[in-house]
C-alpha cells in the first residue's frame, strides 16, 4: 500500500524538479531568517541566488551536530518563537542536548512522512499500534503517534518501560503492530517467553523498529520470536524524528521521503560526494522544514543509496542498512570496529544471546578488546570444555571478520543491560591525553 503515490512514485526527473524548487525556497528562507545560516553562507561565499537546481546543493556548507550545541537552545530557529509550536530535544551523552523546534507545517510534514512509512508496512485504520517508544522530549513516541493518527489506525500510547503492563495490554487489546527500538523488542520477546505468553495469544503482525541500527540477522530473529514482519523505520531528531524513511513490503532498503528530506552520501574524509552506490556518510537537507531548516546536515551514519526503482513501485531512493556511525566507530589496535559487526556475528550463533558489551582499554600501551556475552540458558551444562569450545568458536569468528582477537567474557544470564532506549554497547576506557 502507498500513502502518497504522487510523491512516492514520481519519475526521477520530476523528483529532481520538485527537489530543486523546494531547495531554492528553503535556502532563501534560511538565509533571510536565520542569522546562523546567513553568516555561514556568506562565509562560504554562496548566495541563495546561486541555487538553481538540486545539483547546486553541493555549493552549500555542511551543518554539524556541534552547530546545534553551539547555538543552544534556539539559535538555529528560522521563524519567530511564536510560530514554533513544539520542541523536542535529544539526550546528549556529551555536552548540552540538542533542541529542535517545529512549526505547524513542520509537524504536518513529519506526520505525513510517518504515515508513508506505516502504510508501506501494510498498516491501515483497522490496526492497533502500540507505541513503546518513549514519549517526551525524545522524538520517537510523539513522532510515531502523529503518524498512526494520520492513517486512522488506533494509537495505544504505552510509551517505553513497564514491560509487564505492555504485555498485558498487548494481549487484552489485540495489538497488531508494535513500535519500539529493536533492542527493546528483543527484550520484550524474551519477557513474553518467560511469562509463557505464546504467539497464538497475540495478534501482532508488524514490528515498527528503529532509533538504533540493527542487522538482518536480528530482523530474522525478531520476526520468528514475535510472529511479525519486522520493518526498519529510520529517522533522526535533527531532521525531524522517526519517519525520514522506511522499508516497504519488499524489505530491500529504506525508502527516503526525498521530497521532504534530501539525502547525499559523502566521503567523511574528503567531504566530496561519493560515486553512486558507494558507501559513505549520509547527509540530509530538509526541503520542507521551516522552523529549523537543516542544510547539508552530517548525520555520521554510514550507508549507501540505491536509485533504482523498487519492486513495490516506489521510485524514492533506497538507503542501505546503517553500517555504523562514523563517531561510534572505535579504532582498536589500529582496526576499525563497529558494534553492529559484533551484533551480527553473535546472531550467527544459536548459543549466544544477542546482547553484548564491548570494553576497550589500554594496558601497557596495548589496546585490550573485551566483549561480554551471555550464553543462552539451555546451552549451559556441567561440562566446562563445551563452554570453552563455544567461546573459542566465537573468538575465531570475530577475529576473522574484524581482524583482531577479542577476549570473550561469558557472563551470567541477565547481567548485560537490556536497554529500553538506545542500547549502550561499547565503552572506551582509554585515555588519550
Amino acid at each position, binding site marked *: 500500500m502507498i500513502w502518497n503515490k504522487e510523491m512516492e512514485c514520481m519519475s526521477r526527473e520530476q523528483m529532481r524538479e520538485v527537489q530543486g524548487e523546494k531547495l531554492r525556497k528553503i535556502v532563501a528562507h534560511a538565509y533571510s531568517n536565520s542569522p546562523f545560516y546567513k553568516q555561514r553562507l556568506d562565509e562560504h561565499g554562496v548566495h541563495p541566488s546561486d541555487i538553481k537546481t538540486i545539483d547546486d546543493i553541493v555549493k552549500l556548507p555542511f551543518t554539524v551536530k556541534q552547530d546545534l550545541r553551539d547555538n543552544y537552545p534556539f539559535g538555529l530557529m528560522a521563524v519567530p518563537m511564536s510560530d514554533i509550536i513544539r520542541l523536542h530535544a535529544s539526550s546528549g551523552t556529551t555536552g548540552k542536548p540538542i533542541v529542535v523546534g517545529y512549526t505547524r507545517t513542520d509537524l504536518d510534514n513529519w506526520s505525513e512522512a510517518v504515515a508513508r512509512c506505516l502504510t508501506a508496512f501494510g498498516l491501515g485504520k483497522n490496526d492497533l499500534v502500540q507505541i513503546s517508544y518513549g514519549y517526551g522530549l525524545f522524538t520517537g513516541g510523539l513522532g510515531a503517534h502523529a503518524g498512526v493518527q494520520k492513517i486512522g489506525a488506533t494509537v495505544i500510547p504505552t510509551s517505553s518501560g513497564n514491560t509487564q503492563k505492555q504485555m498485558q495490554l498487548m494481549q487484552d487489546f489485540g495489538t497488531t503492530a508494535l513500535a519500539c527500538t529493536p533492542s527493546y523488542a528483543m527484550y520484550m520477546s524474551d519477557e513474553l517467553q518467560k511469562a509463557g505468553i505464546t504467539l497464538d495469544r497475540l495478534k501482532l503482525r508488524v514490528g515498527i523498529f528503529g532509533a538504533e541500527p540493527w542487522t538482518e540477522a536480528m530482523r530474522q530473529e525478531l520476526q520468528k520470536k514475535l510472529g511479525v514482519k519486522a520493518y526498519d523505520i529510520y529517522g533522526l531528531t535533527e531532521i525531524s524524528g522517526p519517519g525520514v524513511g522506511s522499508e516497504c513490503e519488499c524489505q530491500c532498503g529504506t525508502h527516503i521521503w526525498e521530497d521532504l528530506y534530501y539525502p547525499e552520501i559523502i566521503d567523511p574524509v574528503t567531504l566530496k560526494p561519493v560515486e553512486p552506490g558507494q558507501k559513505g556518510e549520509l547527509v540530509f537537507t530538509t526541503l520542507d522544514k521551516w522552523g529549523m531548516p537543516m542544510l547539508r546536515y552530517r548525520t555520521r551514519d554510514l550507508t549507501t543509496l540505491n536509485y533504482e526503482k523498487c519492486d513495490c513501485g516506489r521510485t524514492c531512493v533506497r538507503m542501505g542498512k546503517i553500517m555504523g556511525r562514523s563517531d561510534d566507530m572505535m579504532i582498536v589496535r589500529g582496526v576499525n570496529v563497529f558494534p553492529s559487526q559484533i551484533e551480527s556475528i553473535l546472531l550467527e550463533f544459536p548459543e549466544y544471546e544477542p546482547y553484548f558489551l564491548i570494553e576497550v582499554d589500554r594496558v601497557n600501551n596495548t589496546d585490550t578488546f573485551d566483549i561480554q556475552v551471555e550464553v543462552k540458558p539451555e546451552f*549451559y551444562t*556441567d561440562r566446562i570444555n563445551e*563452554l570453552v569450545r563455544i567461546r573459542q568458536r566465537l573468538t575465531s569468528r570475530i577475529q576473522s571478520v574484524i581482524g583482531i582477537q577479542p577476549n570473550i*567474557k*561469558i557472563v551470567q*544470564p*541477565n*547481567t548485560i543491560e537490556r536497554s529500553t532506549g538506545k542500547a549502550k554497547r561499547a565503552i572506551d576506557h582509554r585515555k588519550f591525553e
Partner: protein
Amino acid sequence: MIIRQLSVFLENKIGMFAKIARLLGDNGINMLSFNISETQDFGIARIIVEKEEEDRALSLLKANSYAVSMTPVLLIHCNHVPGAMANILEQLSAAGVSIEYLYAFAGKDSDFSRVVIRPDNLEKANQIAQELQ
C-alpha cells in the same frame, strides 16, 4: 545409584560461590558435596544436595538468575579400604567407560566414602556399579 547434580555457571569473580552457598544456606538447603572446575574467566560449580531438595535448589538458583542445569551422575560407595577405589575404576575402564570428572565426599556418619562420577556412558557405568556393590 544415579543421582542428580546441580551444575551452576559462575563468573570467576571474588565472592561468587559465597553468594550461592549463602543463598542455599538461607533457604535451609545443605550441600552434601561440591566441586568447582575453573578457567581463567569462569567456572562451573557442581553441587550435590539432599535428594528431596534437588528441585527446590534448582528453582531457587534459576529464580536468582543463575545459569543452572541438572546433570545425572553416578554415585557409588567406596569403603575405607586400600585398593577399593582402584577396584571400582578398573571395572569401569575394563568396560570401556571413560570418566569426565569425579569427586568424593564422606557421609555425615558413615565408614565409607561416596564418589560422584560423571562417566561418558551413564547406563553402563551404573550397571557395573550395581554389580560391584
